[in-house]
């Protein structure tokens, strides 16, 4: 019974961890190779099409692609990696932060 409870708790925790949070999440994506705005147009074009993304900002100085997820929706790390690759760049790191999109954008 105790084992069953632990397994159930772990399963619930895993489910909650993968579920889209019921709040707006800001995703900080660090990308290598972004030096030319003409070349980086693909990043904007790909992420704008994703239904979970409401806002995209590209910051060359901080090497960041900043994403704002819609409330209750999310984009996976695998999708982010795929979109960065399709755009011709290299993903370094994905972080989900508590600060708002505008706060992170402002630096």
């Amino acid at each position, binding site marked *: 019974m105790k084992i069953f409870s632990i397994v159930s708790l772990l399963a619930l925790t895993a489910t909650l961890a993968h579920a889209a949070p019921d709040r707006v999440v800001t995703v900080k994506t660090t990308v290598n190779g972004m*030096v*030319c*705005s*003409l070349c980086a147009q*693909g990043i904007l074009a*790909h992420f704008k099409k994703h239904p979970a993304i409401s806002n995209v900002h*590209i*910051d060359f100085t901080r090497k960041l692609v900043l994403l704002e997820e819609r409330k209750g929706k999310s984009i996976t790390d695998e999708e982010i990696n795929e979109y960065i690759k399709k755009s011709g760049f290299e993903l370094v790191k994905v972080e989900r932060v508590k600060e708002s999109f505008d706060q992170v954008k402002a630096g």
Partner: protein
Amino acid sequence: MKIIPFSILLAATVATAAAHPVAFEGAYQLMLGTAGSVQNFEFYHSYSSKAAWGLHAMRFDGDEDEIFTGVQHNWLLKRWNLPSSQANVYAGLGAGLAGEVGNGASPAGVGFFRADYETRRVYTAFDAKWVESADVSRGVFSAAAGIAPYEAEFDQLNTWLILQVEHVTGMEDKLDIIPKVRFFKGPYFLELGSTLTGKLVVNFMIHF
């Protein structure tokens, strides 16, 4: 002949060097321009981030103007994405028709090689392009280096000051030296310059 529509297009426009033979997956890129004695028209679809195919036309102004029109496939052979720079090696092969204007055309092949390195302040590139047919044999070789007077962000106007040297085999001028200024913002790219002998250089590109 199939080359007639392209002849009209090239006569009406001025075309450019292939700065972006491959763009992002799903992109279409149109490149038009003129540099010295060579005019260029290219329209490609990047079906992946490493390959594109499309139409390519070139006109060489000389005693007898020559035109190539054909289809071409481009490959991004290698890309180095570094934290503050990017370097690329491209190549392409194509086939079509080439000939002297008004004298018909014969089957032709085209090929190119390009290597570039870029940071937000420094730009260097080397291009080599060949066209071969029974009547036309041309090579276009160019090297360019440039600096950006400021580090532009993604949504700002990018400005570059570039010095390019270009040699076209079979032309009177051994070497064209081309100072030019490059602007791009969003998906639009424009280059303006002149050879030291006063020939206009205009290059335009758009990604969509």
